């Protein structure tokens, strides 16, 4: 059995080496530490391209592979599509049905070019039926199943040999229970190759399946247009397929690196679902898995990818409420955000326009909403506020109030007799001297504390109170006009009006007068500054 395969692969090699032997140099880029994969690859294809195998090591992490892909723009398109394939987690029940087909095609198309090999699902199924008989095959399948399907698809597209390998491995995967994953990956690779070569007709089925899973953050403007409809078609086909839904392959791929036969039963009949749910769940799980893989491998590309994935996942969760999640709205899964590994590569979500402009626009919007969320944490009292305009208003008010407080405090410092024993540690101490007065108490205290404060313009008083109270609510409620007028007075020194001098007089009286008003003033000083301290 093994020998048969090997012979076939040798044949395949000769046929296909010339075809798709591309950039062996890139193998160095894929050193993700998949030693297992390498060895397994070797065993599978003893006569195979050492380069192919060596280069396939472990692109088990879709993200890492994707990030690598993007970091090496010189990578041929093959790789690009391969990366797409890699990124796609196992997808749908399609995998099962198609996986069988792949095995068939593996056998039957061994002598044919890879892209031709991915014929109809029927053929694939035939191959599948043939393969199960091999115990050794099953063994290898088990071994392959331990790897992410993506790794195989890595092998697939850039190299002719690996393509057939992927078929084989896909079949193996099917055998092991994570076959669907590999089948899908094979599909993906097929898809990638196919899009380049554009030969297959029957490949459509596989392509649809691939498309289903190709919802990673890899930009593929070519496929975007077909995505939606192909996904739908793929859905239908997956429903026809047996068992193995995308979810299963997804989880199996990412959680079960060791034999990956996770919950095959849970995915039965979920073929239709994967297109939507798998999008988000895959992305989420991929992010999680990426983090795990990162820890496991510690490879730098993995780290980046995992971090990006994790970051993106967190961002996605955060953005869930604000981001218009058109894909997973019904399932209620976390937002299937397009992971933004690099600033351009965004995959269009299902049902969304795939125009490059709208993609970029969406990325921009999401960046903005992300920052708005961060600002929401900074600005006190903005947790309930939703909507950009209101949020911006709040931010504007808050910044204005902060600036005025600075001015006011510096004015206070100017009037106070400075203490020259500058106790830096005391200033930097974390504990604030005054107790933090509640915001509601500021007003009565202030009004009581300044009986001597008579200003010629009562508006200034009202402006001063909110400033001293430093209450966000107060800020909002205070008449902005008064504040602006006060600010105007402060900022234009040449307009030193009588009112300003009166104000100064009062301030001086304030400070050198009774201590009570000063204390109350102090108590009501910008306490929120402590609250709103942000450690970057």
């Amino acid at each position: 059995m093994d020998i048969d395969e090997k012979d076939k692969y040798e044949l395949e090699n000769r046929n296909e080496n010339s075809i798709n032997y591309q950039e062996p140099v890139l193998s160095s880029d894929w050193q993700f530490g998949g030693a297992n994969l390498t060895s397994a690859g070797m065993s599978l294809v003893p006569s195979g391209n050492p380069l192919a195998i060596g280069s396939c090591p472990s692109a088990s992490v879709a993200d890492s592979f994707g990030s690598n892909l993007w970091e090496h723009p010189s990578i041929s398109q093959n790789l690009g599509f391969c990366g797409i394939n890699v990124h796609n987690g196992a997808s749908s029940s399609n995998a099962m049905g198609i996986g069988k087909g792949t095995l068939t095609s593996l056998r039957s198309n061994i002598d044919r070019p890879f892209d031709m090999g991915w014929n109809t699902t029927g053929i694939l199924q035939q191959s599948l039926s043939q393969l199960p008989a091999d115990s050794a095959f099953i063994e290898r399948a088990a071994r392959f199943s331990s790897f992410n399907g993506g790794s195989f698809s890595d092998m697939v597209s850039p190299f002719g040999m690996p393509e057939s390998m992927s078929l084989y491995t896909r079949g193996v995967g099917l055998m092991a229970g994570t076959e669907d994953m590999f089948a899908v990956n094979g599909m993906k690779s097929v898809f990638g190759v196919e899009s380049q070569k554009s030969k297959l007709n029957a490949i459509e089925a596989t392509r649809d399946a691939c498309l289903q899973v190709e919802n990673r953050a890899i930009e593929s403007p070519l496929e975007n247009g077909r995505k939606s409809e192909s996904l739908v078609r793929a859905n239908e086909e997956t429903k026809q397929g047996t068992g193995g839904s995308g979810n299963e392959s997804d989880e199996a791929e990412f959680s079960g690196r060791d034999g990956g036969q996770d919950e095959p039963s849970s995915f039965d009949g979920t073929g239709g679902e994967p297109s939507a749910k798998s999008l988000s769940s895959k992305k989420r799980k991929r992010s999680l898995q990426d983090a795990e893989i990162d820890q496991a491998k510690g490879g730098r590309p993995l780290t980046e990818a995992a971090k990006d994935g994790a970051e993106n996942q967190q961002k996605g969760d955060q953005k869930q409420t604000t981001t218009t999640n058109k894909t997973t709205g019904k399932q209620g899964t976390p937002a299937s955000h397009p992971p933004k590994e690099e600033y351009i590569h965004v995959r269009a979500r299902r049902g969304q326009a795939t125009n490059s402009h709208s993609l970029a626009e969406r990325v921009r919007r999401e960046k903005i909403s992300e920052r708005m969320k961060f600002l929401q944490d900074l600005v006190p009292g903005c947790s309930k506020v939703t909507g950009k305009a209101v949020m911006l208003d709040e931010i504007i008010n808050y910044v204005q109030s902060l600036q005025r407080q600075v001015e006011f405090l510096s004015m206070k410092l100017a009037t106070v007799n400075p203490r020259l024993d500058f106790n830096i540690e005391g200033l930097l101490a974390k504990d604030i001297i005054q107790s933090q007065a509640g915001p509601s108490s500021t007003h009565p205290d202030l009004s009581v504390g300044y009986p001597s404060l008579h200003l010629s313009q009562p508006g200034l008083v009202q402006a001063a109170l909110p400033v001293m109270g430093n209450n966000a609510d107060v800020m909002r409620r205070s008449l902005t006009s008064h504040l602006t007028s006060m600010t105007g007075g402060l900022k234009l020194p040449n307009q030193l009006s009588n009112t300003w001098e009166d104000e100064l007089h009062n301030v001086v009286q304030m400070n050198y007068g009774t201590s009570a008003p000063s204390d109350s003033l102090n108590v009501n000083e910008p306490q929120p500054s402590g609250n709103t301290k942000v450690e970057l």
Partner: protein
Amino acid sequence: MNPSSLKSRFTTRFLRALTKINAHKPISSSSPGPGEIFQRYRRIKVAADKSMAYSVRSRRTWSRATLWRLRTRSPRSRLATHARRSWVKTRSTRAASHGKEKKEDGGTVEAEELRELVPGGEAMDLCNLLDETAHYIKCLTTQLDILDRQECTSREL
């Protein structure tokens, strides 16, 4: 306390400036005139802003803008401000047109307000503007904290 944190950097600079100001114009025991106080106030405010901007150096647009603003204040104001305004104008029109091209949904009105508030925000797109605002808010709160403490300790004679 982190010796190289923003807070400590700002504090050291600010205190240095304060001592300079106090040495320069020792406050008279009798209640000083409002003009004098106002002058001091201006100096202190400038010192606060300057020390904060220097603590951040040129890493942030707002700090660069603040430093620029402080450097080219009244003495050379007309030439300098004109140069700055023209530079800012070109950049902002470019940014604005770019933003409006993409149908910037973010309330350009509020964004404009924010741009005025945050120094150097005139020539930034909304995305970066929000970044700058976040950092600016953080620095403002630090500044307020130190000013407050300083004022408190100073008052306690």
